[in-house]
């Protein structure tokens, strides 16, 4: 888990390049097909991009606004997911809570639920007439739908399971003997979690956060249902792309590319800054 010294890192990279030629055919062929499958649609977008009018499309009012809102909401959703999701993953991986299997299944519900249904479900709980929402409205005059807060909530609902599953996997794979040793040295469970467990699974948390952020950034269905679509407050890039597709397909392609470029740039930057040394996580 500790970072290898620079020399051995370079040697390992060199070694990897040499063994690259030795990928067995049963792995190589599907792997190449897999890459083609994922990359060709992207190529399709690039081919259809109206490069001559890209500048004009980007300068269109609302594009910068939607991009800023997307980045802000996806980041807030990721932070909220970290705050709630890491403890939840710990409970799933380490505690002896009864019904843990059921709990784990419930966590994955947002993964299988069509996002639009997720949006309706959020209405039924947090909407003006919802279980909690009606109380919030009556007691405090707070209504959540059609606000930026609603965007963050919708994105968190859909994206948090990705984080929880990643972190739980990392916790299960981590060697629990370190925690046992910490306990024998007198550390309480909270101290052990903070000082031993969390640093141990940091790469898993990082990878989970990246997945979560990417999913939140692309979120469409739950957002447009629960938060609605209004430029400046709730219209994120995926919503802007969808609506542009209605009558200006070329603008939609440009907007998609912008979203793609920004997210790729962010992920690559993060990888180098924080996640690179963990090597295998991304």
């Amino acid at each position, binding site marked *: 888990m500790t970072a290898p010294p620079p020399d051995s890192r370079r040697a390992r990279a060199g070694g990897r390049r040499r063994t690259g030629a030795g990928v067995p055919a049963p792995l190589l062929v599907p792997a190449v097909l897999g890459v083609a499958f994922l990359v060709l649609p992207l190529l399709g977008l690039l081919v259809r991009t109206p490069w001559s009018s890209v500048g004009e499309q980007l300068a269109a009012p609302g594009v910068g606004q939607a991009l800023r809102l997307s980045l802000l909401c996806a980041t807030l959703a990721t932070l909220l997911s970290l705050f709630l999701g890491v403890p939840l993953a710990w409970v799933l991986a380490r505690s002896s809570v009864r019904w843990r299997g059921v709990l784990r299944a419930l966590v994955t519900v947002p993964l299988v639920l069509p996002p639009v249904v997720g949006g*309706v479900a959020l*209405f*039924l709980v947090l*909407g*003006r*007439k919802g279980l909690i929402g009606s109380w919030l409205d009556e007691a405090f005059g707070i*209504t959540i*739908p*059609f606000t930026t807060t609603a965007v963050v909530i919708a994105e968190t609902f859909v994206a948090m399971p990705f984080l929880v599953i990643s972190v739980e996997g990392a916790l299960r794979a981590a060697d629990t003997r370190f925690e046992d040793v910490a306990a024998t040295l007198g550390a309480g469970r909270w101290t052990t979690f903070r000082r031993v467990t969390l640093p141990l699974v940091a790469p898993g948390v990082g990878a989970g956060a990246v997945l979560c952020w990417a999913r939140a950034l692309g979120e469409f269905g739950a957002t*447009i*249902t629960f*938060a*609605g*679509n*209004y*430029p400046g407050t*709730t*219209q994120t890039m995926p*919503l802007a792309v*969808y*609506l*542009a*597709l*209605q*009558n*200006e*397909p070329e603008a939609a392609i440009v907007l998609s590319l912008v979203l793609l470029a920004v997210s790729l740039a962010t992920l690559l930057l993060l990888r180098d800054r924080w996640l690179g040394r963990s090597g295998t996580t991304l």
Partner: protein
Amino acid sequence: MRLRTLPLALVLLVTAACGGEADAPGAPAGAAEAATDPSGGAGLTGTLTVFAAASLTDVFEDLGERLEGENPGLAVQFNFAGSSALATQITQGAPADVFASANQSQMTVVTDAGLESADPEVFTENVLEIAVPPDNPGEVTGLADFAREELALAVCAPAVPCGAAAEDVFGIAGVTPLPDTLEEDVRAALTKVELGEVDAALVYASDVASAGDAVEGIGFPEAEEAVNEYPVCVLTEAPNPEAAEAFVELVLSDEGQQALEDAGFRAPSA
């Protein structure tokens, strides 16, 4: 053959080849199947794919079931979405038999691409109505209420037909609306009224009718200035042209018109 129709032709060729039919060159894929049936109109087979505006969902599903009932070998499939999304899909080569649009402009997208097999025909009309939750909590009475800041309001996005119509009526009424959300299609706007999450939404009369007791409709005079005409046509690349013709006939028949009227639409005025 123009270059842009080439991919479509390829798709059709592949479909025909997979079906093992020895069609004459250029003959539509479904023609051979239909021709083998001597009983004429009844006995349609295969799959009929209808691309229809979202507002037609209930009434077209009903008409589709009637056609299936008369033709046990026929399966009717629908793709309901915003007309502009459907027009995009059709011009991108989606294998559709029939296109029913909620306005003329999206039909024009299809006819400009030369994809209609005969001139589109207006089969019904729809006007905008204000939909409110049953007890009308916002005490909405007309278009002017859409300028009230304290209400939660939904209007369709200008890019979709109901949004374009909404812009027209607001312009005529001289009202500057303050919506909380610009919905991606009319059904999404209606859902928010049904859930009680907005005090009012501008939707079509047919949507109000389809929601039953879940919403109340409020008519307004400016609606007459933005009547939506619904054109329908069979597409040139239709995989099942016989069934497509039969469906369009059913829609235009007295039976079809009655079903449309029951669903809140009205007969074309022209």
